[in-house]
């Protein structure tokens, strides 16, 4: 990391002498702010200044002793990404957007549920009735559910057979004829007359 920084310094034209001058004149404590400033100013002072081989090596050692990562962090840290990864670097597999299972829950019939926005915020000024409404979990609409299915991997789409699941009554929609998946069970005591 540090080596790459030094290389980039050289590329923009920081001469070794300029760095050394700073160290000598301001001492250890003042080195960091000075170096940070140098990135913009030294270029103007030494447009063609490239350090020779020996002195640049000396610079690497010097930087190792004095510089710390926080100074470099804004330069080197990559911007975080929350997008869907279609092909991972390792195995080329589709990745899950972790924010989706962190906020939503998938019922087995395909719909996702969520909390209401602001469910934990400023409860002191909300009425009792409103607070009770905020406790509820609501359905995500069909378009969004379809989108979430595509944002997560197959693992999250397969039903989970956990015991004592509080959402167990909501995983099936056997109440209506148009949503029923399995045939209606026979009433108690009624059997098929096949045995006779």
């Amino acid at each position, binding site marked *: 990391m540090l080596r790459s920084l030094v290389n980039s310094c050289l590329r923009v034209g920081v001469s070794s002498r300029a760095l050394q001058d700073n160290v000598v004149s301001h001492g250890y404590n003042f080195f960091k702010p000075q170096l940070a400033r140098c990135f913009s100013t030294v270029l103007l002072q030494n447009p063609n200044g490239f350090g020779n081989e020996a002195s640049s090596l000396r610079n690497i050692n010097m930087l190792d002793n004095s510089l710390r990562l926080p100074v470099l962090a804004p330069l080197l840290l990559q911007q975080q990404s929350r*997008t*869907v990864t279609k092909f991972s670097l390792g195995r080329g597999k589709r990745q899950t957007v972790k924010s989706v299972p962190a906020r939503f829950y998938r019922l087995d019939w395909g719909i996702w549920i969520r909390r209401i926005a602001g469910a934990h915020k400023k409860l002191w000024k909300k009425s009792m009735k409103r607070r009770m409404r905020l406790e509820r979990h609501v359905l995500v609409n069909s378009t*969004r559910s379809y*989108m979430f299915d595509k944002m997560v991997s197959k693992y999250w789409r397969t039903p*989970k057979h956990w015991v004592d699941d509080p959402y167990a009554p909501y995983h099936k929609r056997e109440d209506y004829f148009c949503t029923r998946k399995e045939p209606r069970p*026979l009433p108690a*005591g009624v059997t098929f007359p096949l045995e006779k």
Partner: protein
Amino acid sequence: MASRGYEKALTMLRTLPRVGIYNIAANPGHVKKSKRGRAQHGGDKHGAGNKGSLARQNYMRMGYETGNNPYYLRFPAEPYYVGHHLRRQYPPLSLAKLQLMIDTDCLDTSKPIDLVQICNTGYYEIKPQSKHYGVQLTDEGLDNFKAKINIEVQWTTEPVIAAIEKNGGTITTAFYDPHSLFALTNVKKFLESGEPIPKRMIPPEDAIEYYTNPKNRGYLADPEKISYERLVLAQKYGYTLPKIEEDPDYKMLTERKDPRQIFFGLEPGWIVNLVDRIILKPTDPELKEYYRT
């Protein structure tokens, strides 16, 4: 007899190599372009439409709303899936389905029913690699359940236990570790691998309580307490408990596995040779000590 044309063709065909995707050539005149031409070299829209992100094929990423606070980040986090990678799953099997399996002779009630028998019906599947830990017997169709069975499941509830014991049957809840589950769910594959039958491990910390509880008919519970709980449950649900001691199938109904045993009739450490139809048993005292219960 003069050979006919079709006979010659058939004899030729017999000597020719088998036709497959690896040795068939393209039709004469068929030319497959190796490149997607641009402009005068056959270039057109290539099915991608005219202008816009569709033509340039730079679609917006999933969930992005062009600068809006995206919907998938708009709501508070909720611990719906906390610990999902550790939670044990028990795929359900309803009493109605069990009764159907018995009625259609998929299950033999004259022998104890365990995970091996249930998986061998082909109507029930568990995947140990997906953290499935066995059968969860559910209460759907419990009013119509009529069979007298000795069943071993991995998870169940009180009404199911009552429904089975009311008919003079017995039920046990038993834990199997994933290694044993791989052996139980595909017995043939396991025996053909030539590995010794593993010993069953004890349940994890959070499952010990369930499997030592006589109310759940746990396999680690005291049998005396289980017989007491059978009576308590009969009184709670208001049925007279059938006396299994006087039952002709008493031996079958009270057959249980050892807590270290996986298969009925086979002990851990044995190797079953399916080809020579023999069973190899360990003789080394160190091995015997390891597989001892």
